[in-house]
């Protein structure tokens, strides 16, 4: 099994409305590790995440080139089955968006769409994923309540569980704790450290501190370009590039 789950080759992308873009990004994403994409807003981090599950298909794109190989297959190929891809590459968004359904229905939503009807299978997947997302104890007695009634921190962990229920291989997190209090943030970060044993995790953190806390590997993005990429430990203590150091030290951004 190759150590790299994802290989990105010379990826360039430009949105039609001129916001965020990517320019010639090449990098590898390791299996069973937390890879952090960090840098100032508009640097292309979210855009890169959305290339991995083809969520950019929903946005008007002016130009794109390059390759994103997941397990050796180019997912940007128009022939890719995006439905299968999105079950394999799950995503947690910045704002916790629970669907207007019960907690239970939220968790099994993806599985039901995939055609799973057996109640035992759905229940099993629900319990397993809620436990993995460290929220089972808080919701196990109220699974049929509307998910919107939960607190923001709980909702975000339900969103994480909802992704885990599909048993994906890669989990993308786009500033998943930006709206959460420190305690909820701690719970999400702890969950990620557990999850990386089984999954490949790509995280856009909401602060440099979070990047430093969580990163096995880190990539620094500035205005659509990958400036520096390496092991987290090295990056946050002895960055090679001046611009990386300036950003980490808080001289801009």
């Amino acid at each position, binding site marked *: 099994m190759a150590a790299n789950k994802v290989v990105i080759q010379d990826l360039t992308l430009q949105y039609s409305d001129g916001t965020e873009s990517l320019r010639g990004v090449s990098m590898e994403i390791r299996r069973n590790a937390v890879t952090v994409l960090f840098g100032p807003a508009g640097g292309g981090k979210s855009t890169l995440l959305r290339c991995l*599950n083809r969520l950019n298909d929903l946005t008007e794109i002016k130009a794109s080139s390059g390759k994103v190989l997941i397990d050796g297959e180019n997912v940007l190929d128009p022939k890719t089955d995006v439905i299968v891809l999105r079950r394999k590459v*799950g995503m947690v968004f910045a704002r916790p*968006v629970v669907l207007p359904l019960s907690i239970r229905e939220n968790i099994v939503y993806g599985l039901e769409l995939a055609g799973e009807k057996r109640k035992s299978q759905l229940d099993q997947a629900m319990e397993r994923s809620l436990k993995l997302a460290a929220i089972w104890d808080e919701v196990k007695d109220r699974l049929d309540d509307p998910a919107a009634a939960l607190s923001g921190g709980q909702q975000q962990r339900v969103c994480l569980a909802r992704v885990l229920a599909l048993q994906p291989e890669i989990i993308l997190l786009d500033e998943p704790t930006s709206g959460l209090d420190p305690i909820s943030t701690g719970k999400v970060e702890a969950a990620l450290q557990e999850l990386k044993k089984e999954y490949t995790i790509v995280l856009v953190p909401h602060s440099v501190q979070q990047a430093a806390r969580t990163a096995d590997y880190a990539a620094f993005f500035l205005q659509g370009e990958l400036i520096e990429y390496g092991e987290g430990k090295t990056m946050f203590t002895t960055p090679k590039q001046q611009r990386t150091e300036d950003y980490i030290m808080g001289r801009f951004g």
Partner: protein
Amino acid sequence: MNRFFAHNRHAVQRLGYSLVTLMAVLTVIPIVSTILFILYKGGPAISWEFLSGFPHDGMRAGGILPAIIGTVYLTIGTAVFSVPLGIAAAIYLAEYAKDTFLTRLIRIAIINLAGIPSVVYGLFGLGVFVLFLRFGTSILAASLTLSIMTLPVIISTAEEALRAVPQAFRTVSISLGGTRWQTIRRIVLKEALPGILTGVILGLERAAGETAPILFTGAAFFLPRLPVSPFDATMALPYHLFVISTQVPEMPVQIQYGTALVLLVFVLSMNLIATVIRSRARARRQW
């Protein structure tokens, strides 16, 4: 002058506030007084015999049952055609259509459809449904005519209701491996349904009260029995009201106002249903 206003900002504020409040109250007066007037004049006509009997003595006595039943049939007939078509069109426009020449054309058509006078729909229905398609003067032809008139209302309110559903729900559903249609069916339609229903009821309510579109296409002056097939002509409340108010000499005023009252209650109760649906949905909404 400037100085005066500068010093009396609060006075100006109060004056403006009183003025807009007065205007708001003024708009309610015609509606309330119409309802009270009809209730006062028509109330005494209402009896079991009036609601369940046939007209006799050249419509100068008896009941208005065939007109009530006819209006119910026409409303149902209009719903059968306009609701599925209107909702499908709204889904296309809100969820699938890109901003192209074709969709712009469709939108312009819908806007213009809403602006056409109802008597023109009547003539169109006569030409196309009654004569060309040989449906004759019938419930079918009248329902189709009313459907075309109702479509713009249903399409535009349904489209608005669909667009009001947060985009984030769609993004999340698609990111979980949902297709566009699964997302619409399971999340978007469910959330937009109360808004869509409101539009449907408001559209049908207008159709139920219209006279001109059914004048040449399905309405009968007088029928001795109830219609039994969609190809039969029918009596209807608004047309019956027109007939007994203008075409029958020595008509008792009470029957005229009684008929108006029944039509008013029919339309207003549909309105009430729409309001209840809307406020219930708003209370339950999670976004």
